[in-house]
Every structure is written in structure tokens, then in C-alpha cells.
């Protein structure tokens, strides 16, 4: 569905000639409906389901884990730890519940534990032998949209970053995000509204 939203002023880099729709969200994961079936096969011990799940979800997971200013090495460590946790707690998924909130609840917990671990290490280690890796995409291909996206995301407090990431990148609904963050729909709406206010300011600043 396309809505006519022609900008009155000069179109900026955000205003594409082709008006955007929620198509980008839907096309981000056309395979979403297959996930519960894959999870059932995974719980039954089907090795092909493991490959399929890892292939389908890894991109989103590594994007989520690396979206908060982590080095590549740290992101990859968290990514592996996250899959180990998913594997050891696969019995806690209940078909036919939505799979993404379940996966992201575990990913979020992995990320928070990793954050606490790093904080403890940083408190112990004052001197470093070499400068840490710069946060960046995990593969080597240039991804300009991601950099711009990360810059916008980093203008928000961390709890709002998480909510906006899940809403924008994974295409999860408000209820799914509430499930993934062990929160309520009301609290998620509140965080999203605060993030919108802040994003408006950042976008406004960018224009000026």
C-alpha cells in the first residue's frame, strides 16, 4: 500500500522519489511464518532445521548484537554465546508462539550479560596493549544504510535503541517487542514515543 506523502520542501536524502511503505518491514523476513514449524523440527532433533534456523536468523541476531557500539570480535563472541543459549534452552519455546520474541529475549539477555562482563573487565584493566577494534559491520562489505542507521540509533538512550531496533529492523509488533524485553506493551509504547521525540530532533538538526 502506498500513501501519498509528497514532501513540500526540497526532498532530502531521506525523501526518496519512490514513497516508502511498510513493505520494507514485510520483506525483511518473508520466511517468518515458517519459523514455528522449523522450531518444532529443531525441538524434535532435525539437523536440517538447525541449519535453516541459523541461516535465517543469524543476520538479524548479529545486527542486533553489534548495533550497540561493540567491536567485531566482541560481537562474534556474543553471537556464538547467543546461539549456545538458544540451543540449551530450546525446550522453553512453545509452539505455535511467535519465534522472534523468544529468540530476541535470549539475545537481549546475552547482550546484557556481555555488557556487564565487559564493564567488570574494563574496571580491572586500565592499560591496553592495542586500541580496540572499531565498531563496524561484521562482514567486510560496505553498508552505508547501516552506518547511517547506527548513527541515528546511537543518538538514543540504550533502552530506547533496543525498542527502535526491534520495531524497525526485525519488523516485530509492539506486543512482540514487549515479549522480547519482558516488558508491557504500555512501557514499550512509552519508550517508542520518547525515542520518536529524540529522533525528530536529530532529523531536524540534520536538515539544518
Amino acid at each position, binding site marked *: *500500500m502506498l*500513501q501519498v*506523502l*509528497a514532501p513540500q520542501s526540497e526532498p*532530502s536524502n*531521506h525523501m526518496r522519489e519512490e514513497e*516508502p*511503505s*511498510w513493505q*520494507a518491514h514485510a*520483506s525483511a523476513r518473508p520466511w517468518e511464518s515458517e519459523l514455528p514449524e522449523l522450531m518444532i523440527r529443531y*525441538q524434535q*532433533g532435525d539437523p536440517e532445521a*538447525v541449519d535453516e534456523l*541459523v541461516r535465517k536468523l543469524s*543476520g*538479524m541476531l*548479529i545486527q542486533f548484537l*553489534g548495533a550497540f557500539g561493540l567491536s567485531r570480535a566482541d560481537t*562474534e563472541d556474543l553471537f556464538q*554465546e547467543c546461539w549456545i*543459549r538458544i540451543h*540449551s*534452552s*530450546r*525446550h*522453553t*519455546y*512453545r509452539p505455535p508462539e511467535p519465534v522472534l*520474541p*523468544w*529468540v530476541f529475549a*535470549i539475545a537481549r539477555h546475552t547482550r546484557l550479560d556481555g555488557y556487564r562482563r565487559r564493564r567488570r573487565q574494563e574496571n580491572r584493566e586500565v592499560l591496553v596493549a592495542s586500541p580496540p577494534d572499531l565498531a563496524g*559491520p561484521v*562482514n567486510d562489505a560496505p*553498508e552505508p*544504510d*547501516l552506518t547511517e*542507521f547506527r548513527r541515528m540509533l546511537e543518538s538514543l538512550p540504550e533502552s530506547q535503541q533496543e525498542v527502535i531496533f526491534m520495531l*524497525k529492523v526485525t*519488523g*516485530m*509488533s509492539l506486543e*512482540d517487542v*514487549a*515479549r522480547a524485553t*519482558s*516488558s*508491557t506493551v504500555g*512501557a514499550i509504547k512509552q519508550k*517508542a*514515543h520518547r525515542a*520518536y*521525540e529524540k*529522533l*525528530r*530532533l536529530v532529523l*531536524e*538538526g540534520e536538515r*539544518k
Partner: protein
Amino acid sequence: MQSGAGMPVTMSDECRQIDLELDGALSQNASERLTWKMSEPALAHLRKCERCRRLYHWLLDGVAPTHPALELVEAVGTRMKKSLAPVTPQSSPRVLAAHFLLVFLLFSAPMIGMMGTAGLHEMNLTQLVGILTVLICSAGLLSFSLAWQMSPGSLHRVPPRIAVIALATGFLVATAVLFPWQEPQSFLEHGWSCLKAGLLMAAPSSLLFWVLVRRGLTLASGMMGASLGAIAGLVGASVLQFTCNRQDATHLLVWHGGVVIVSLVLGVAISWGVKSLLRPRA
């Protein structure tokens, strides 16, 4: 509110209406959003408000996907397949909560039977109904809270912190309002024996709750330890409520309530201790 350039930026009611419209779209899943339509007044506002239009476009724009290194993905898959065995899905949060409540009742009832019902005879009907309501509601709330915490991706109708606060507030208010405030006699002596007895009952019940919780430790945190400690402490406090003949507000709040508090603190401490022991070393 200041803009990035230092110019004041005001959020009009119409801008806030856009946020509410976005809530409408984002309440649906990604495929349902394709057929979602924005209201006419909101569309009219978008046409004239550049800030809202930019935000709307930014939210709608896709983000380039990230592709992890193939070797990394293959390594993860291989590692998972090495220990791949069929598993039985965990019960629903409702069933899990029923299990917790059952343990609560199966543990408290025989204890009350063994230790006598001296406290029951000291209470009038209003006190009995009031405190029983608080104890049962708290046990139910904590049972559901634990069940939700055990199930990643489940919708928490009540956040775990609120469940614990509700228990504390309910007990505090019910005791303060329903029970008489009397001059404490042998306050420490009687109280200490109640605290010990309550904790001695909470300890074995916490083991039973632990047996139920251990399958859902994926998202284990200090809060889960607090909830587990609180429900175990509530078993002790509930038994004391029916067996202790000192039914004055000060004694109930300090010593019976103390059983829940000590048990909750121990739950948090044990959960953090276990977590730090299991933590991977750098």
C-alpha cells in the same frame, strides 16, 4: 525541547497524534502493516510537518541486512548439531503457575496441620478473610511472575518487580489496617522464634520451587531469585499466620514479614552467587 541547531522545537498535539498513529501500525505484525492506512488528519499533518514526515520515512525505510561470516555460521551450526537431541517443550506459563501454586498449598497445608491452628482462633472473620486474600493473591501473582520469567518471549502482564512490590504493599496495608497495634511484650524473644520457624519452613519449600524453576533458567537473574525467595518466604509467613498466637500488627509486620524479606534477600544473593560461579572466565 531544543532542536539540534539550538532552535526551540515544539511537539504539537498533531505531532503526538502521529505517534499514536504509529502505535496503530506497529501493533500489527509486519505483513499486516501492508494494509494499514493512516487517518486523513494524520496524513494532512504529515504533508505540512517536515519533522514528522522525516521520522515517518525513517521508520519505514529498510535497513541493509548484515551477513555474518559464513565460517562463523557454519561453526555455530556444527556445534549445535553435535548435541542435538529431541526435547519436550516446556509447559505453558499458566500450567507452570498452577504447579507453583500447588507446591505452595501442598507445603503450607500439612505444615499448618502439624503446627496447630492457634493463630486462626486469634483472628476474627474480617482479619481472616483480609489476610487470606492477600496471601492467596500474592502467591498467585508470584507464581505467574515466576512462570513468565521462566518462559522467554512470554508476555509479562505484571512486571516481576511490581509483583514483589504488590506483595509487600498488600501485606503491609492489610496487617496495618486489620490487626491491632499493641504494646510489644517479649517482642524479640517471641519474634525471633517466629522468624526462625518461618525461615526453616521457607528453606525446604524453596528447594521444591527450585526443582520447578530449574528448567527455565535461560533468563535467570537476580529478579528470578527474588521472586523465588519471596514465594518461599510467603510459605513460611502463611504458615505462621495460622499457627502463631501473637496476632498484633507490630509482630506480624516485623517478624512474619521479616521471613519474606530475609528469604527474598537470600534468593537474590544465591542467584547472583550461582550466576557468578557459572560465568565464563575471560
